């Protein structure tokens, strides 16, 4: 038990859940369903990757759902009303969201405020700004959009690995590499472990905080673009409450909400577990969508309780065996 990392437990839950679902509905175990699972949760996977960095560093980012909503509206209006080429619109919104994240990080660091409340203000700000742009759903008809929706790699068994699923997988892999193999990643862990210690050891705490929130908002911006590919529209109310799903996925993935521990792969598995619950409920047909929320809540509780237990176990003073004294 002691050597079992939380990620492994998440993986076991995912596999066990998948096997149980497949036993009841054999068609779930097909590349078609798995392909859809990846496509439907592509934006969640991207934004959860960014959230993993924030939470490991000991912070939280409540603004991601609003940033996704703002991005979809901005992209839709830029392409359809203001006549921007799609690529220019994408670059513009990514710069904008990165600057937004950097600003939140700067406020958190400079004024020494809790991330929770600063990103809450960011959430209001981004959602309010998207309402100001447009309150109605703006369809996007640019040719790029139909090209991206049509693009898919055929998998054996008839499944389609869509473009947005590929983008998500690429970002998850890049995020995992960034977190586990670079100095930046090591600094993120250091910040979450103990801010003062990290600062004494020479980590530029201010710069790191700004970069981490910038990364989270940037990925939320990318998730927003992916979301607009997924729905082919921009709507100011899209992705309401996604911040909760994201935090839930990160926690189920074995990342400690107090910071200092976690992994991008675990988060990815957490996203898949949430997607699996949704898929199961769709397959069953008699269960209503609110069971998703209850099931997610129960899983959330189980994983947090488990982490709490593991932490308590780690903090327990080491008991020397009686033989050592003699």
């Amino acid at each position: 038990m002691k050597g079992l990392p939380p990620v492994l437990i998440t993986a076991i839950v995912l596999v066990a859940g998948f096997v149980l679902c497949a036993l009841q509905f054999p068609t779930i175990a097909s590349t078609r369903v798995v392909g859809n699972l990846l496509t439907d949760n592509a934006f969640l996977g991207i934004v959860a990757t960014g959230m993993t960095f924030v939470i490991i560093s000991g912070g939280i980012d409540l603004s991601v759902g609003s940033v996704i909503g703002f991005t979809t509206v901005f992209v839709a209006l830029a392409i359809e009303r203001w006549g921007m080429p799609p690529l220019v619109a994408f670059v513009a919104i990514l710069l904008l969201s990165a600057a937004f994240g950097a600003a939140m990080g700067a406020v958190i660091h400079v004024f020494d405020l809790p991330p929770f409340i600063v990103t809450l203000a960011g959430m209001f700000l981004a959602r309010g700004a998207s309402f100001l742009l447009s309150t109605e759903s703006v369809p996007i008809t640019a040719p790029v959009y139909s090209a991206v929706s049509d693009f898919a790699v055929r998998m054996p068994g008839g499944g389609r690995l869509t473009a947005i699923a590929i983008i998500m997988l690429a970002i998850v892999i890049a995020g995992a590499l960034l977190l586990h193999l670079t100095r930046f990643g090591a600094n993120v862990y250091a910040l979450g472990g103990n801010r003062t210690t990290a600062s004494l050891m020479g980590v530029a705490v201010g710069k790191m905080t700004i970069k981490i929130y910038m990364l989270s908002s940037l990925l939320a911006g990318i998730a927003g673009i992916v979301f607009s590919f997924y729905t082919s529209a921009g709507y100011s109310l899209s992705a309401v409450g996604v911040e909760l799903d994201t935090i839930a996925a990160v926690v189920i993935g074995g990342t400690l909400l107090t910071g200092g521990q976690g992994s991008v792969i675990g988060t990815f598995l957490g996203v898949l577990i949430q997607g699996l619950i949704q898929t199961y409920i769709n397959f069953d047909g008699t269960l209503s969508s609110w069971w998703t929320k209850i099931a997610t809540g129960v899983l959330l509780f189980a994983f947090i309780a488990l982490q709490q237990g593991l932490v308590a176990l780690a903090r327990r003073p080491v008991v020397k065996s009686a033989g050592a004294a003699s």
Partner: protein
Amino acid sequence: MTALLPRRGLAQVLALIVILAVDRMVSPQFFDLRLQDGRLFGSLIDVLNRGTPVALLTLGMVLVIATRGIDLSVGAVMAISGAIAASLADSYGLPIVLTAALGAGLVCGLWNGFLVAVLGMQPIVATLILMVAGRGIAQLITEGRIVTFSSPDLVWLGNGSVLGLPVPVVIALGMLVLTAAVVRGSALGLLIEATGGNARASELAGVGTRAMILSVYVWCGVCAALAGVIAAADIMGADANNAGLWLELDAILAVVIGGTSLFGGRFSLVLAVLGALIIQTMNTGILLSGYPPEFNLLVKAVVVLAVLLLQSPKLSGLAGIAMRLRRTKA
């Protein structure tokens, strides 16, 4: 001026006066009150009435925050209690309906308090669980429909009037007086502040910190349940998806505007309720001004940032240094 008014709370009172003045400029009849059918009508009464649910949430939230905690689940608890009240209203009497709805809030509070005080979870995480699952539970109770009712007793709770004032306002006032009497009339408030200031030191000094934490979450749950019943009675129905949606954020905002530190250790009930009124006065003002209600969120964001920056220890430190420099120069 400072001699007349306590230093604490001056900023909030001034803010409320400024916003009221702006509202008066936007809508000249803002302060008009008229008596009709034994009940007062007017924008001011409307502000009080609409502000009631958030004010009730604030009463519980401010105590939770004083212990260095936070309760994200109050919106979901509102949905649950509203759903229970609406489902029972037409077949049972008011006492049973209220007991069931408030009991549900009590159980939710016990659950949150158990996770935080006994299992030692971080408050944000612990209450996140109920925030996610609670709305699902509420939908389970209403079976995904919007449950409506016509029980006159429950409707009176949302739309009736006592001595010219709307019933919700009277209930909120009563709860404020009750909470203040219990918390400030005894040493309880001090013990709660001690728990938030330094839980370990308080524990060593003999404060039952676990009991304190547990009881503030229970109180927060009960207040949220009451707000949920009133919200349901107001629209004569329960909508599990939208009842109390995002109100937890408004309640936290109200507490922060009221000058209660998010780091725990001190709180003010009256100022927190004043914070709730400030938020509602802004909302009503924006509505009356004819601007789209979408401006609400932007204005709120700016207000949160401004209040946060004013409270920031760093900023007041800087201001202190600047003042000292000026003094030495002079």
